[in-house]
Protein backbone atom coordinates (compact mmCIF):
# COMPACT_ATOMS: atom_id res chain seq x y z
CA UNK A 1 0.00 0.00 0.00
CA UNK A 2 2.69 2.50 1.08
CA UNK A 3 6.41 2.01 0.50
CA UNK A 4 9.29 4.45 1.03
CA UNK A 5 12.73 3.76 -0.40
CA UNK A 6 15.70 5.75 0.95
CA UNK A 7 13.59 8.88 1.35
CA UNK A 8 15.24 12.08 2.56
CA UNK A 9 13.76 15.55 2.87
CA UNK A 10 15.84 18.71 3.29
CA UNK A 11 14.03 22.00 3.91
CA UNK A 12 17.36 23.82 4.18
CA UNK A 13 20.73 22.69 2.94
CA UNK A 14 22.42 20.38 5.47
CA UNK A 15 19.35 20.37 7.77
CA UNK A 16 17.53 17.12 6.97
CA UNK A 17 13.94 16.77 8.24
CA UNK A 18 14.02 13.09 7.19
CA UNK A 19 17.05 10.93 6.43
CA UNK A 20 17.23 7.75 4.40
CA UNK A 21 13.82 6.45 5.43
CA UNK A 22 12.75 2.94 4.40
CA UNK A 23 9.20 2.06 5.32
CA UNK A 24 6.50 -0.41 4.39
CA UNK A 25 2.83 -0.07 5.42
CA UNK A 26 0.67 -2.89 3.98
CA UNK A 27 -2.99 -2.59 3.07
CA UNK A 28 -5.29 -2.55 6.08
CA UNK A 29 -2.50 -1.71 8.54
CA UNK A 30 -2.96 0.64 11.51
CA UNK A 31 0.26 2.38 12.46
CA UNK A 32 1.25 5.19 14.78
CA UNK A 33 4.14 7.48 13.91
CA UNK A 34 5.73 8.63 17.16
CA UNK A 35 8.69 10.72 18.18
CA UNK A 36 9.53 14.02 19.86
CA UNK A 37 8.79 17.40 18.27
CA UNK A 38 10.94 17.93 15.17
CA UNK A 39 11.40 14.18 14.66
CA UNK A 40 9.87 14.41 11.18
CA UNK A 41 6.35 13.02 11.84
CA UNK A 42 4.48 15.81 10.07
CA UNK A 43 7.02 15.90 7.24
CA UNK A 44 6.50 12.19 6.64
CA UNK A 45 2.72 12.67 6.44
CA UNK A 46 3.15 15.70 4.11
CA UNK A 47 5.25 13.54 1.80
CA UNK A 48 2.48 10.94 1.74
CA UNK A 49 -0.19 13.39 0.60
CA UNK A 50 2.24 15.19 -1.74
CA UNK A 51 2.18 18.50 0.10
CA UNK A 52 5.97 18.18 0.09
CA UNK A 53 8.29 16.40 -2.35
CA UNK A 54 11.18 14.19 -1.19
CA UNK A 55 14.67 15.55 -1.84
CA UNK A 56 15.86 11.99 -2.45
CA UNK A 57 14.22 8.58 -2.73
CA UNK A 58 10.97 7.17 -4.03
CA UNK A 59 7.50 6.89 -2.47
CA UNK A 60 4.91 4.42 -3.68
CA UNK A 61 1.30 4.96 -2.60
CA UNK A 62 -1.28 2.52 -3.89
CA UNK A 63 1.00 1.52 -6.75
CA UNK A 64 1.99 4.98 -7.99
CA UNK A 65 5.28 6.80 -7.51
CA UNK A 66 4.20 10.06 -5.93
CA UNK A 67 7.75 11.44 -5.87
CA UNK A 68 7.27 11.86 -9.61
CA UNK A 69 3.57 12.77 -9.61
CA UNK A 70 3.02 15.96 -11.67
CA UNK A 71 1.39 18.85 -9.79
CA UNK A 72 -1.60 18.65 -12.12
CA UNK A 73 -2.23 15.01 -11.00
CA UNK A 74 -1.95 15.53 -7.23
CA UNK A 75 -5.74 15.68 -6.93
CA UNK A 76 -5.98 12.06 -8.14
CA UNK A 77 -3.84 10.96 -5.17
CA UNK A 78 -5.73 13.10 -2.66
CA UNK A 79 -9.06 11.61 -3.74
CA UNK A 80 -7.83 8.26 -2.46
CA UNK A 81 -6.78 9.72 0.87
CA UNK A 82 -8.55 11.11 3.91
CA UNK A 83 -6.53 13.67 5.86
CA UNK A 84 -7.14 14.87 9.43
CA UNK A 85 -5.24 17.64 11.23
CA UNK A 86 -4.84 18.78 14.82
CA UNK A 87 -6.43 22.16 14.01
CA UNK A 88 -9.41 20.47 12.22
CA UNK A 89 -9.26 22.90 9.24
CA UNK A 90 -13.03 23.43 9.20
CA UNK A 91 -14.49 26.42 7.38
CA UNK A 92 -16.29 28.78 9.77
CA UNK A 93 -18.51 30.18 7.01
CA UNK A 94 -20.03 26.74 6.32
CA UNK A 95 -22.08 24.64 8.67
CA UNK A 96 -21.18 21.08 9.69
CA UNK A 97 -23.08 19.49 6.82
CA UNK A 98 -21.55 21.85 4.23
CA UNK A 99 -18.03 21.28 5.57
CA UNK A 100 -18.36 17.54 5.08
CA UNK A 101 -20.15 17.93 1.74
CA UNK A 102 -17.20 19.93 0.35
CA UNK A 103 -15.16 16.71 -0.06
CA UNK A 104 -17.88 15.30 -2.34
CA UNK A 105 -18.67 18.55 -4.17
CA UNK A 106 -15.15 18.68 -5.58
CA UNK A 107 -15.73 15.24 -7.10
CA UNK A 108 -18.80 16.51 -8.97
CA UNK A 109 -21.17 14.09 -7.24
CA UNK A 110 -24.91 14.89 -7.62
CA UNK A 111 -26.40 16.89 -4.77
CA UNK A 112 -28.89 14.22 -3.69
CA UNK A 113 -26.13 11.61 -3.44
CA UNK A 114 -23.99 14.09 -1.48
CA UNK A 115 -26.83 14.65 1.01
CA UNK A 116 -27.30 10.90 1.49
CA UNK A 117 -23.63 10.13 2.02
CA UNK A 118 -22.95 13.12 4.29
CA UNK A 119 -25.96 12.25 6.44
CA UNK A 120 -24.88 8.62 6.79
CA UNK A 121 -21.32 9.62 7.69
CA UNK A 122 -22.43 12.20 10.28
CA UNK A 123 -24.76 9.57 11.77
CA UNK A 124 -21.97 7.02 11.91
CA UNK A 125 -19.81 9.50 13.85
CA UNK A 126 -22.70 10.52 16.11
CA UNK A 127 -22.85 14.21 15.15
CA UNK A 128 -25.82 14.14 12.76
CA UNK A 129 -27.92 16.13 15.23
CA UNK A 130 -25.48 19.05 14.85
CA UNK A 131 -25.35 19.11 11.09
CA UNK A 132 -26.79 22.64 10.80
CA UNK A 133 -24.50 24.04 13.49
CA UNK A 134 -21.56 26.30 12.84
CA UNK A 135 -18.40 24.28 13.56
CA UNK A 136 -17.09 27.03 15.85
CA UNK A 137 -19.97 26.36 18.28
CA UNK A 138 -18.92 22.71 18.74
CA UNK A 139 -16.51 21.21 21.30
CA UNK A 140 -13.00 20.23 20.18
CA UNK A 141 -13.92 16.55 20.07
CA UNK A 142 -17.01 17.25 17.99
CA UNK A 143 -15.07 19.46 15.59
CA UNK A 144 -12.52 16.71 15.11
CA UNK A 145 -15.30 14.23 14.38
CA UNK A 146 -16.63 16.61 11.72
CA UNK A 147 -13.12 16.79 10.22
CA UNK A 148 -12.93 12.96 10.28
CA UNK A 149 -16.36 12.75 8.63
CA UNK A 150 -15.05 15.01 5.85
CA UNK A 151 -11.94 12.82 5.51
CA UNK A 152 -13.97 9.60 5.35
CA UNK A 153 -17.01 10.61 3.33
CA UNK A 154 -15.40 9.83 -0.03
CA UNK A 155 -14.38 6.37 1.26
CA UNK A 156 -10.60 6.75 1.11
CA UNK A 157 -8.29 3.76 1.03
CA UNK A 158 -5.83 5.46 3.37
CA UNK A 159 -6.55 7.74 6.35
CA UNK A 160 -3.72 10.05 7.44
CA UNK A 161 -4.03 11.91 10.75
CA UNK A 162 -1.54 14.47 12.08
CA UNK A 163 -1.87 14.84 15.89
CA UNK A 164 -5.65 14.31 15.72
CA UNK A 165 -6.03 14.31 19.52
CA UNK A 166 -3.66 17.25 20.06
CA UNK A 167 -6.03 19.67 21.75
CA UNK A 168 -8.52 17.12 23.10
CA UNK A 169 -9.13 15.73 26.58
CA UNK A 170 -8.63 12.02 27.33
CA UNK A 171 -12.24 10.99 26.81
CA UNK A 172 -12.58 12.83 23.49
CA UNK A 173 -9.21 11.41 22.40
CA UNK A 174 -10.37 7.86 23.05
CA UNK A 175 -13.58 8.44 21.13
CA UNK A 176 -11.53 9.61 18.15
CA UNK A 177 -9.34 6.51 18.40
CA UNK A 178 -12.44 4.31 18.53
CA UNK A 179 -13.55 5.89 15.28
CA UNK A 180 -10.13 5.20 13.71
CA UNK A 181 -10.23 1.56 14.90
CA UNK A 182 -13.69 1.19 13.36
CA UNK A 183 -12.51 2.72 10.06
CA UNK A 184 -9.53 0.38 10.04
CA UNK A 185 -11.77 -2.62 10.75
CA UNK A 186 -13.70 -1.72 7.57
CA UNK A 187 -10.48 -2.04 5.55
CA UNK A 188 -9.00 1.45 5.46
CA UNK A 189 -5.28 1.76 6.11
CA UNK A 190 -4.78 4.20 9.00
CA UNK A 191 -1.60 6.16 9.82
CA UNK A 192 -1.67 8.45 12.85
CA UNK A 193 1.18 10.79 13.83
CA UNK A 194 1.05 11.52 17.55
CA UNK A 195 3.16 12.21 20.60
CA UNK A 196 0.38 10.97 22.90
CA UNK A 197 2.10 7.81 24.18
CA UNK A 198 -0.82 6.92 26.47
CA UNK A 199 -3.08 6.55 23.43
CA UNK A 200 -0.41 4.55 21.58
CA UNK A 201 -0.07 2.17 24.54
CA UNK A 202 -3.81 1.73 24.95
CA UNK A 203 -4.36 0.96 21.26
CA UNK A 204 -1.53 -1.60 21.07
CA UNK A 205 -0.92 -1.11 17.37
CA UNK A 206 2.23 -0.92 15.24
CA UNK A 207 4.56 1.96 16.13
CA UNK A 208 6.90 3.70 13.68
CA UNK A 209 9.31 5.69 15.83
CA UNK A 210 11.26 8.61 14.43
CA UNK A 211 13.98 10.71 16.02
CA UNK A 212 15.98 13.51 14.39
CA UNK A 213 14.52 12.56 11.00
CA UNK A 214 15.71 8.95 11.26
CA UNK A 215 13.64 5.82 11.64
CA UNK A 216 14.48 4.10 14.90
CA UNK A 217 11.91 1.26 14.98
CA UNK A 218 8.93 -0.05 13.05
CA UNK A 219 10.13 0.23 9.45
CA UNK A 220 8.32 -2.95 8.48
CA UNK A 221 5.24 -4.59 10.03
Amino acid at each position, binding site marked *: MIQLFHVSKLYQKDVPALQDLNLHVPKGDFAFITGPSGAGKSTLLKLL*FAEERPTHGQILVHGRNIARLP*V*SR*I*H*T*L*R*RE*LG*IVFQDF*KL*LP*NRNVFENVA*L*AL*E*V*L*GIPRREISRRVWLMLKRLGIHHKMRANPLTLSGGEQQRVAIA*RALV*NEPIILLADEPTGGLDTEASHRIMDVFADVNARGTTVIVATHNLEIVRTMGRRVIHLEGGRLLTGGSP
Partner: protein
Amino acid sequence: MNRFLSSIGRAINNLRQSWLISSITIGIISICLFLIGGYLLITHNLQGVFQTWKNQVTITIYLRDGFPEPDVLAFQDRLSSLPEVHSVTYTSKDEALAEFGTMLGDDKFLIEGLDRNPLPASLRITPGDRHRNLDGVNSILGAIGDDPLVLDIQYGQDWLDNLDRLLKLLDLGAMVLGLTLSLAAVFIISNTIKITVMARKDELEIMRLVGATESFIRLPFLVEGVIQGMAGAVLSLGLLGVVHAFLASRSDQPLLRILNIESIDFLPLSAIGAILLAGMLLGGLGSLASVGKHSR
Protein backbone atom coordinates in the same frame (compact mmCIF):
# COMPACT_ATOMS: atom_id res chain seq x y z
CA MET B 1 -22.43 22.68 -18.30
CA ASN B 2 -23.47 21.30 -14.94
CA ARG B 3 -20.06 22.18 -13.57
CA PHE B 4 -20.30 25.70 -14.97
CA LEU B 5 -23.73 26.20 -13.40
CA SER B 6 -22.46 24.91 -10.09
CA SER B 7 -19.53 27.35 -10.37
CA ILE B 8 -21.98 30.21 -10.83
CA GLY B 9 -23.87 28.99 -7.78
CA ARG B 10 -20.70 28.80 -5.72
CA ALA B 11 -19.56 32.22 -6.99
CA ILE B 12 -22.86 33.83 -5.97
CA ASN B 13 -22.66 32.09 -2.62
CA ASN B 14 -19.11 33.39 -2.11
CA LEU B 15 -20.17 36.91 -3.09
CA ARG B 16 -22.99 36.76 -0.56
CA GLN B 17 -20.72 35.49 2.20
CA SER B 18 -18.02 38.10 1.62
CA TRP B 19 -20.40 40.90 0.66
CA LEU B 20 -18.31 43.67 2.24
CA ILE B 21 -15.08 42.96 0.38
CA SER B 22 -17.11 42.24 -2.78
CA SER B 23 -18.83 45.62 -2.47
CA ILE B 24 -15.45 47.32 -2.09
CA THR B 25 -14.16 45.53 -5.20
CA ILE B 26 -17.27 46.48 -7.18
CA GLY B 27 -16.94 50.08 -5.93
CA ILE B 28 -13.30 50.33 -7.00
CA ILE B 29 -13.99 48.79 -10.40
CA SER B 30 -16.85 51.24 -10.90
CA ILE B 31 -14.66 54.24 -9.95
CA CYS B 32 -11.95 53.19 -12.41
CA LEU B 33 -14.45 52.58 -15.19
CA PHE B 34 -16.26 55.82 -14.30
CA LEU B 35 -13.03 57.78 -14.86
CA ILE B 36 -12.39 56.03 -18.17
CA GLY B 37 -16.06 56.44 -19.16
CA GLY B 38 -16.03 60.11 -18.13
CA TYR B 39 -13.03 60.65 -20.32
CA LEU B 40 -14.82 58.90 -23.21
CA LEU B 41 -17.92 61.01 -22.59
CA ILE B 42 -15.93 64.25 -22.82
CA THR B 43 -14.00 63.29 -25.95
CA HIS B 44 -17.17 61.93 -27.58
CA ASN B 45 -18.91 65.26 -27.12
CA LEU B 46 -15.86 67.26 -28.21
CA GLN B 47 -15.73 65.27 -31.47
CA GLY B 48 -18.48 67.59 -32.75
CA VAL B 49 -16.36 70.62 -31.90
CA PHE B 50 -13.29 69.14 -33.56
CA GLN B 51 -15.40 68.33 -36.61
CA THR B 52 -16.71 71.92 -36.80
CA TRP B 53 -13.16 73.21 -36.63
CA LYS B 54 -11.95 70.72 -39.19
CA ASN B 55 -14.82 71.62 -41.52
CA GLN B 56 -13.37 75.10 -41.68
CA VAL B 57 -10.26 73.76 -43.38
CA THR B 58 -10.67 74.89 -47.01
CA ILE B 59 -8.35 76.09 -49.75
CA THR B 60 -9.34 79.06 -51.91
CA ILE B 61 -7.60 79.47 -55.28
CA TYR B 62 -7.98 82.90 -56.87
CA LEU B 63 -7.83 82.70 -60.66
CA ARG B 64 -6.20 85.02 -63.18
CA ASP B 65 -8.56 86.96 -65.45
CA GLY B 66 -8.77 86.27 -69.13
CA PHE B 67 -8.79 82.48 -69.29
CA PRO B 68 -11.70 80.94 -71.22
CA GLU B 69 -14.29 79.10 -69.12
CA PRO B 70 -13.49 75.62 -70.55
CA ASP B 71 -9.92 75.98 -69.18
CA VAL B 72 -11.27 76.86 -65.75
CA LEU B 73 -13.73 73.93 -65.81
CA ALA B 74 -10.97 71.53 -66.87
CA PHE B 75 -8.83 72.79 -63.96
CA GLN B 76 -11.80 72.33 -61.62
CA ASP B 77 -12.29 68.75 -62.90
CA ARG B 78 -8.61 67.97 -62.38
CA LEU B 79 -8.80 69.18 -58.78
CA SER B 80 -12.07 67.32 -58.13
CA SER B 81 -10.48 64.07 -59.23
CA LEU B 82 -7.73 64.29 -56.57
CA PRO B 83 -8.22 61.59 -53.90
CA GLU B 84 -7.73 64.12 -51.08
CA VAL B 85 -10.47 66.41 -52.39
CA HIS B 86 -14.09 66.17 -51.33
CA SER B 87 -15.54 68.97 -53.48
CA VAL B 88 -14.55 72.01 -55.53
CA THR B 89 -16.91 74.99 -55.85
CA TYR B 90 -16.47 77.58 -58.59
CA THR B 91 -17.31 81.23 -57.92
CA SER B 92 -17.26 83.43 -61.04
CA LYS B 93 -16.16 87.07 -61.02
CA ASP B 94 -19.79 88.23 -61.20
CA GLU B 95 -20.86 85.96 -58.33
CA ALA B 96 -17.92 87.21 -56.25
CA LEU B 97 -18.97 90.80 -56.81
CA ALA B 98 -22.61 90.02 -55.98
CA GLU B 99 -21.54 88.24 -52.74
CA PHE B 100 -19.34 91.19 -51.83
CA GLY B 101 -22.24 93.54 -52.48
CA THR B 102 -24.44 91.51 -50.12
CA MET B 103 -21.72 91.66 -47.49
CA LEU B 104 -21.48 95.46 -47.80
CA GLY B 105 -25.23 95.87 -47.25
CA ASP B 106 -26.06 99.56 -46.99
CA ASP B 107 -22.58 100.47 -48.21
CA LYS B 108 -23.20 98.67 -51.48
CA PHE B 109 -22.99 101.97 -53.32
CA LEU B 110 -19.19 101.82 -52.88
CA ILE B 111 -18.91 99.25 -55.64
CA GLU B 112 -21.62 100.61 -57.86
CA GLY B 113 -20.38 102.40 -60.93
CA LEU B 114 -17.04 100.57 -61.14
CA ASP B 115 -15.93 100.43 -64.76
CA ARG B 116 -14.61 96.89 -64.32
CA ASN B 117 -15.03 94.08 -61.79
CA PRO B 118 -11.85 94.02 -59.63
CA LEU B 119 -12.64 90.70 -57.89
CA PRO B 120 -11.10 87.51 -59.27
CA ALA B 121 -12.99 84.29 -59.89
CA SER B 122 -12.12 81.54 -57.40
CA LEU B 123 -12.23 77.81 -56.71
CA ARG B 124 -12.99 76.72 -53.17
CA ILE B 125 -11.61 73.27 -52.34
CA THR B 126 -13.03 71.27 -49.45
CA PRO B 127 -10.67 68.39 -48.57
CA GLY B 128 -12.08 64.94 -47.79
CA ASP B 129 -12.81 64.22 -44.13
CA ARG B 130 -9.54 62.40 -43.49
CA HIS B 131 -7.50 65.08 -45.24
CA ARG B 132 -8.71 68.13 -43.31
CA ASN B 133 -5.29 68.57 -41.75
CA LEU B 134 -1.89 70.01 -42.58
CA ASP B 135 -0.71 66.90 -44.46
CA GLY B 136 -3.87 66.76 -46.55
CA VAL B 137 -3.70 70.44 -47.45
CA ASN B 138 0.01 70.20 -48.34
CA SER B 139 -0.71 67.22 -50.55
CA ILE B 140 -3.43 69.14 -52.41
CA LEU B 141 -1.16 72.20 -52.76
CA GLY B 142 1.49 69.94 -54.28
CA ALA B 143 -1.02 68.64 -56.81
CA ILE B 144 -2.07 72.18 -57.82
CA GLY B 145 1.55 73.01 -58.64
CA ASP B 146 2.42 76.05 -60.81
CA ASP B 147 -0.72 76.18 -62.88
CA PRO B 148 -0.84 79.42 -64.96
CA LEU B 149 -4.48 79.89 -63.91
CA VAL B 150 -3.50 80.39 -60.29
CA LEU B 151 -3.25 83.98 -59.09
CA ASP B 152 -3.08 83.29 -55.37
CA ILE B 153 -3.86 80.55 -52.85
CA GLN B 154 -5.24 81.09 -49.36
CA TYR B 155 -5.80 78.41 -46.73
CA GLY B 156 -5.12 80.10 -43.35
CA GLN B 157 -1.77 78.46 -42.82
CA ASP B 158 -1.18 79.70 -39.24
CA TRP B 159 -4.61 78.64 -38.12
CA LEU B 160 -4.23 75.24 -39.73
CA ASP B 161 -0.81 74.77 -38.11
CA ASN B 162 -2.30 75.51 -34.70
CA LEU B 163 -5.31 73.26 -35.24
CA ASP B 164 -3.04 70.46 -36.36
CA ARG B 165 -0.86 70.78 -33.27
CA LEU B 166 -3.89 70.98 -30.96
CA LEU B 167 -5.49 67.85 -32.44
CA LYS B 168 -2.22 65.92 -32.21
CA LEU B 169 -1.80 67.03 -28.60
CA LEU B 170 -5.35 65.93 -27.75
CA ASP B 171 -4.75 62.56 -29.40
CA LEU B 172 -1.56 62.11 -27.38
CA GLY B 173 -3.31 63.20 -24.20
CA ALA B 174 -6.10 60.76 -24.92
CA MET B 175 -3.66 57.92 -25.31
CA VAL B 176 -1.63 58.75 -22.19
CA LEU B 177 -4.72 59.30 -20.04
CA GLY B 178 -6.49 56.18 -21.30
CA LEU B 179 -3.42 54.01 -20.81
CA THR B 180 -2.67 55.39 -17.35
CA LEU B 181 -6.26 54.92 -16.17
CA SER B 182 -6.44 51.39 -17.59
CA LEU B 183 -3.17 50.37 -15.94
CA ALA B 184 -4.25 51.89 -12.64
CA ALA B 185 -7.58 50.07 -12.93
CA VAL B 186 -5.92 46.69 -13.56
CA PHE B 187 -3.50 47.23 -10.68
CA ILE B 188 -6.16 48.25 -8.17
CA ILE B 189 -8.63 45.57 -9.24
CA SER B 190 -6.13 42.72 -9.14
CA ASN B 191 -4.98 43.83 -5.69
CA THR B 192 -8.51 44.10 -4.35
CA ILE B 193 -9.42 40.68 -5.65
CA LYS B 194 -6.18 39.39 -4.16
CA ILE B 195 -7.58 40.38 -0.77
CA THR B 196 -10.69 38.29 -1.38
CA VAL B 197 -8.51 35.36 -2.45
CA MET B 198 -6.31 35.77 0.63
CA ALA B 199 -9.44 35.81 2.78
CA ARG B 200 -10.33 32.38 1.34
CA LYS B 201 -6.84 30.93 1.68
CA ASP B 202 -8.13 28.27 4.10
CA GLU B 203 -10.94 27.29 1.77
CA LEU B 204 -8.50 26.92 -1.15
CA GLU B 205 -6.18 24.82 1.02
CA ILE B 206 -8.97 22.50 2.13
CA MET B 207 -10.32 22.13 -1.39
CA ARG B 208 -6.88 21.03 -2.55
CA LEU B 209 -6.57 18.62 0.37
CA VAL B 210 -9.83 16.90 -0.51
CA GLY B 211 -8.73 16.50 -4.14
CA ALA B 212 -10.23 19.43 -6.03
CA THR B 213 -8.76 20.12 -9.47
CA GLU B 214 -7.26 23.53 -10.17
CA SER B 215 -10.03 24.33 -12.64
CA PHE B 216 -12.69 23.42 -10.05
CA ILE B 217 -11.02 25.85 -7.61
CA ARG B 218 -10.44 28.65 -10.10
CA LEU B 219 -13.70 28.65 -12.06
CA PRO B 220 -15.86 30.17 -9.29
CA PHE B 221 -13.23 32.88 -8.73
CA LEU B 222 -13.28 33.63 -12.45
CA VAL B 223 -17.08 33.77 -12.46
CA GLU B 224 -17.00 35.90 -9.30
CA GLY B 225 -14.52 38.32 -10.88
CA VAL B 226 -16.62 38.58 -14.03
CA ILE B 227 -19.80 39.23 -11.98
CA GLN B 228 -17.99 41.86 -9.89
CA GLY B 229 -16.56 43.46 -13.03
CA MET B 230 -19.96 43.56 -14.69
CA ALA B 231 -21.61 45.01 -11.57
CA GLY B 232 -18.85 47.64 -11.38
CA ALA B 233 -19.35 48.50 -15.05
CA VAL B 234 -23.13 48.82 -14.66
CA LEU B 235 -22.63 51.02 -11.58
CA SER B 236 -20.13 53.23 -13.41
CA LEU B 237 -22.52 53.60 -16.35
CA GLY B 238 -25.27 54.57 -13.91
CA LEU B 239 -23.01 57.22 -12.37
CA LEU B 240 -22.10 58.49 -15.82
CA GLY B 241 -25.81 58.64 -16.64
CA VAL B 242 -26.42 60.82 -13.58
CA VAL B 243 -23.52 63.12 -14.47
CA HIS B 244 -24.74 63.27 -18.07
CA ALA B 245 -28.29 64.13 -17.00
CA PHE B 246 -26.92 66.90 -14.75
CA LEU B 247 -24.78 68.38 -17.53
CA ALA B 248 -27.53 68.03 -20.13
CA SER B 249 -29.89 70.01 -17.91
CA ARG B 250 -27.40 72.87 -17.96
CA SER B 251 -26.60 72.84 -21.66
CA ASP B 252 -27.29 76.59 -21.95
CA GLN B 253 -23.92 77.33 -20.33
CA PRO B 254 -21.88 80.01 -22.16
CA LEU B 255 -18.90 77.65 -22.43
CA LEU B 256 -20.98 75.18 -24.40
CA ARG B 257 -22.14 77.95 -26.70
CA ILE B 258 -18.54 79.05 -27.29
CA LEU B 259 -17.62 75.45 -28.10
CA ASN B 260 -20.63 75.28 -30.43
CA ILE B 261 -22.09 72.30 -28.53
CA GLU B 262 -25.87 72.26 -28.89
CA SER B 263 -26.63 69.23 -26.75
CA ILE B 264 -24.54 66.86 -24.68
CA ASP B 265 -24.85 63.29 -25.93
CA PHE B 266 -24.46 60.17 -23.76
CA LEU B 267 -21.90 57.54 -24.73
CA PRO B 268 -22.57 55.68 -27.99
CA LEU B 269 -23.62 52.02 -27.74
CA SER B 270 -20.15 50.86 -28.79
CA ALA B 271 -18.57 52.68 -25.82
CA ILE B 272 -21.21 51.29 -23.41
CA GLY B 273 -20.47 47.79 -24.70
CA ALA B 274 -16.73 48.41 -24.39
CA ILE B 275 -17.09 49.51 -20.75
CA LEU B 276 -19.18 46.42 -19.88
CA LEU B 277 -16.67 44.18 -21.64
CA ALA B 278 -13.74 45.95 -20.01
CA GLY B 279 -15.35 45.46 -16.59
CA MET B 280 -15.85 41.74 -17.13
CA LEU B 281 -12.34 41.31 -18.55
CA LEU B 282 -10.71 43.31 -15.75
CA GLY B 283 -12.66 41.42 -13.09
CA GLY B 284 -12.07 37.99 -14.61
CA LEU B 285 -8.40 38.45 -15.42
CA GLY B 286 -7.63 40.20 -12.14
CA SER B 287 -9.26 37.35 -10.29
CA LEU B 288 -7.46 34.63 -12.24
CA ALA B 289 -4.12 36.36 -11.75
CA SER B 290 -4.71 36.55 -7.99
CA VAL B 291 -5.80 32.92 -7.62
CA GLY B 292 -2.82 31.82 -9.72
CA LYS B 293 -0.40 33.67 -7.45
CA HIS B 294 -1.86 32.25 -4.27
CA SER B 295 -2.69 28.82 -5.54
CA ARG B 296 0.27 27.01 -4.02
